């Protein structure tokens, strides 16, 4: 039970971190492209790749992995905001931008997981 609550608290910390980063980026970014969500997802994917590699090579134990990936990174990264930004871009007739955002959100976080995996398994 304590483990469960700690994972939840990590998720809360992740959500707060996202709020801070999101607000700071949106303050200076005035363009159409939703940069803040994109940066957040890219960062979360990179860290998730590192964590997955670390867990696979038994550098960290399962509980730490859960705390970090399921807790913090789960609260930090967001799928719902990204999809809703795509939909609102498409609804305001910015179809090219919506398609570009869709493609970029699909490809770059995936690439970042691979890069993170490579970073995490470097010493092997």
């Amino acid at each position, binding site marked *: 039970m304590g483990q*469960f609550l700690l*994972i*939840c*608290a*990590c*998720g*809360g*910390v*992740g*959500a*707060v971190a*996202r*709020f*801070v980063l*999101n*607000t*700071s980026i949106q303050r200076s970014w005035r363009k159409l492209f939703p940069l803040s969500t994109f940066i957040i*997802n890219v960062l*979360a*994917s990179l*860290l*998730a*790749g590192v964590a*997955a590699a670390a867990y696979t090579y038994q550098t960290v134990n399962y509980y730490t992995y859960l705390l970090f*990936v*399921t*807790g913090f*990174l*789960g*609260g*930090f*990264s*967001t*799928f*719902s*905001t*990204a*999809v*809703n930004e*795509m*939909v*609102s871009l*498409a*609804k305001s007739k910015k179809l090219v931008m919506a398609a570009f955002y*869709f493609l970029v*959100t*699909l490809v770059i*976080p*995936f690439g*970042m*997981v*691979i890069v993170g*995996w490579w970073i995490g398994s470097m010493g092997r």
Partner: protein
Amino acid sequence: MHTYDDGDPRGQSLTAHTEPDHEPAANADSDNPLTRDFEQELLRPHPTGAAAARKPPSVPLAPLKRVQARFNPLADVMVYLVVFIGGCFGTALRYGLWLWLPYRGTTNHLLMAFPPATFIANMIATFVFALLSSYMTQAIWIRKRARQLISRGVGMGMCGGFSTLSAMMIEDITAMHNGGYWGFFLYTMVTFIVGIAVAWFGSWLGLQLTKKRSAKQAVAEALRMQTRAKPAIGVRVPTDPEVAGAHTTDSNDELQSASLAALAATTHTGDPDPDTDEIPVVADPMTGEVK
């Protein structure tokens, strides 16, 4: 009735005010130059002075204002609290769902990449987020602060904590590592396409839920504009001769009905234009009295 279909609309709307022979634009449609004028004035900001420059000068916040929530969203303790609680709750839901529906490893390469918990969590969170954000943009009857806290706490905190992209990407790479290339591709595509459909449906539903009430509010606002406070007895209200002309009462009525029509046109409620002749006998929604 005279039709205004040629020339400069701005000049013609002026003639519509001053010339006594023309009919008032009571049932104004979008072709009416008067409506267009009002719409232009209402929708387009006209900055003057330094604000009209291409890059208006920005004044940095005073140090004492920088730590106040009114001026700085990063100094808002309440939002931090709400986002933290929402994030905890969303993570609890996602982790609980994951414990309840654990991923069973299969050797089937197509189904290998389908962890049910992450998919269900992402879809529910996307739907709730779309519904909430479209509802909150329309629900002007809720106080602004309450709307902000709800959309931060439930939208950003809970839905953001419930949905996750990083776990999805890890599952993708795990499936790819185990050779499930098609499964990985199918899972990612299905997640995004179903997610977009769900988000579209959610935002549509949010607009439908608020449509009736926001239309009612727009009509009430228009009524309040029409039955604006009358001057006290004995107070003489000067009338602008350029606008009102010789026939004061008539032109004022024209102007009011035209502004009402313009307001109805700009609010875009989708309702037909109100019959302005009948509005004065409708009860005032605020006080209930019939004027």
